[in-house]
C-alpha cells in the first residue's frame, strides 16, 4: 500500500517534470551487453544516424553519450526522450585483460583508467534518468551481482525498467533464464545487431513511459 502511494507520487512528479523537458532514457548493464549497439539501432531507426562506436573489447564506451530529442511514433502515439548510453558497470577492471585483447601497455592502462571513471559516471547518472532499459547479454549468466545491484538500485529509486535480453541471434542465448532471474520485470528478447524483435522492444518502451 505504502509502495503504491509512493510510486503514484513519484509518477505524478515525473509526469510534471517530463512536460518541462525531454525524459532521459538510460541504457544500463554490464560491459559488452550491447548497449551501444542498441543505441545505434534506435538512433538509426528514428534519426537516421548512429550514436557511438562498438567493439568486441570490453569498456568501449567509457563516457556517457547522449542523443537528444528522439521521437518514437506508434499508432498515433508519440514519445520523446533523450537517449543516455552509459559505460558498462563492472566490479573489477584489470588492465591486463586489455593487454590480452591486443592493446599495448600504455593503451591498456589508459583504457582501464577511463573505464573506472566510466563506471563511476554510470552510477552517478542513476539519479538523473527517468526510465531505464537494462541491456543484458542473453548468452551469459543473469545472476551476476552487477545485474542485481543495477536493477535493485533502479527499483529503490522507483525508476521504470524494461529488461532487454540481447544477442538472441546467438546459439547459446536464453531469454528464459533472464525471465526466471527477474520475474517481476518485462523481458524482451532482441538482437540489436540484426534488428530482430525491435517492434516488440519499441512496444515495451511505450509501456515503460505510460
Amino acid at each position, binding site marked *: 500500500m505504502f509502495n503504491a502511494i509512493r510510486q503514484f507520487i513519484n509518477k505524478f512528479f515525473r509526469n510534471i517534470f517530463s512536460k518541462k523537458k525531454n525524459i532521459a532514457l538510460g541504457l544500463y548493464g554490464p560491459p559488452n551487453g550491447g548497449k551501444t549497439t542498441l543505441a545505434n539501432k534506435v538512433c538509426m531507426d528514428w534519426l537516421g544516424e548512429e550514436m557511438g562506436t562498438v567493439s568486441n573489447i570490453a569498456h568501449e564506451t567509457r563516457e556517457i553519450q547522449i542523443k537528444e530529442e528522439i521521437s518514437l511514433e506508434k499508432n498515433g502515439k508519440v514519445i520523446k526522450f533523450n537517449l543516455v548510453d552509459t559505460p558498462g*558497470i*563492472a*566490479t*573489477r*577492471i*584489470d*588492465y591486463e585483460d586489455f593487454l590480452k585483447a591486443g592493446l599495448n601497455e600504455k593503451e591498456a*592502462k589508459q583504457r*582501464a583508467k577511463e573505464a*573506472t*571513471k566510466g*563506471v*563511476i559516471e554510470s*552510477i*552517478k547518472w*542513476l539519479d538523473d534518468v527517468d526510465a531505464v532499459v537494462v541491456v543484458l547479454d542473453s548468452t551469459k*549468466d543473469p*545472476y*551476476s*551481482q*552487477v545485474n*542485481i*545491484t543495477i536493477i*535493485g*538500485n533502479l*527499483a*529503490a529509486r522507483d525508476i521504470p525498467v524494461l529488461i532487454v535480453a540481447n544477442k538472441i541471434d546467438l546459439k547459446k542465448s536464453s531469454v528464459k533464464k533472464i525471465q526466471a532471474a527477474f520475474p517481476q520485470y518485462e523481458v524482451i528478447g532482441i538482437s540489436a545487431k540484426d534488428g530482430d524483435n525491435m517492434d516488440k522492444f519499441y512496444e515495451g518502451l511505450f509501456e515503460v513511459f505510460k
Partner: protein
Amino acid sequence: MLSLQFVPYHEIEELGSARRVKKLLDIVKQDNIVLLQGRLKKEEEADLIAITMEEIDNKFKGIELAVVNPDKKTDGIIRNVKQNMVNLLLGDRQGFTIIGPASIVKDIKRDPDKIQLYTEEAKANGKGNSVKGRKKGT
C-alpha cells in the same frame, strides 16, 4: 591460502554508509574475503562499486561481490511487512554478502540459494568452492 573474515552485522550497524563501505573495502584490500552477515542497502552496494573503481590501480584490480538472500516471496505478506519493518529499524541481517578481492576471487557463480566461489587455481581446474545458503532464514 584463502583468508575469510566474518563481519557480523553489529560491527557495521552504527556506521554511516561511507564508513561501512570503507571498512569492508579496507578488509578486502588486505587480500581477505569478507563474509558479511546480512546485506548492505542497495544504494550502498552501488557506492561500494563506485568507491572500488576509485581505488583501482596496478595492484588492486577490484572486487567480486555476491549477496545470498532468503526467498521472501514464500514468506507471506504479514511476515514480509514485519521483516521490512525490522530491516528498516535494524538493517537487513538476512542472508549474507561475500566480497572478495578480484586478484584472488576470479568469479562468483550465483543461483538464487547457492553460490560458487572460483579462485584462480580452482578456475583453472574448472572447480569452484561451493557455499550453499538456506532458502528461509539464517
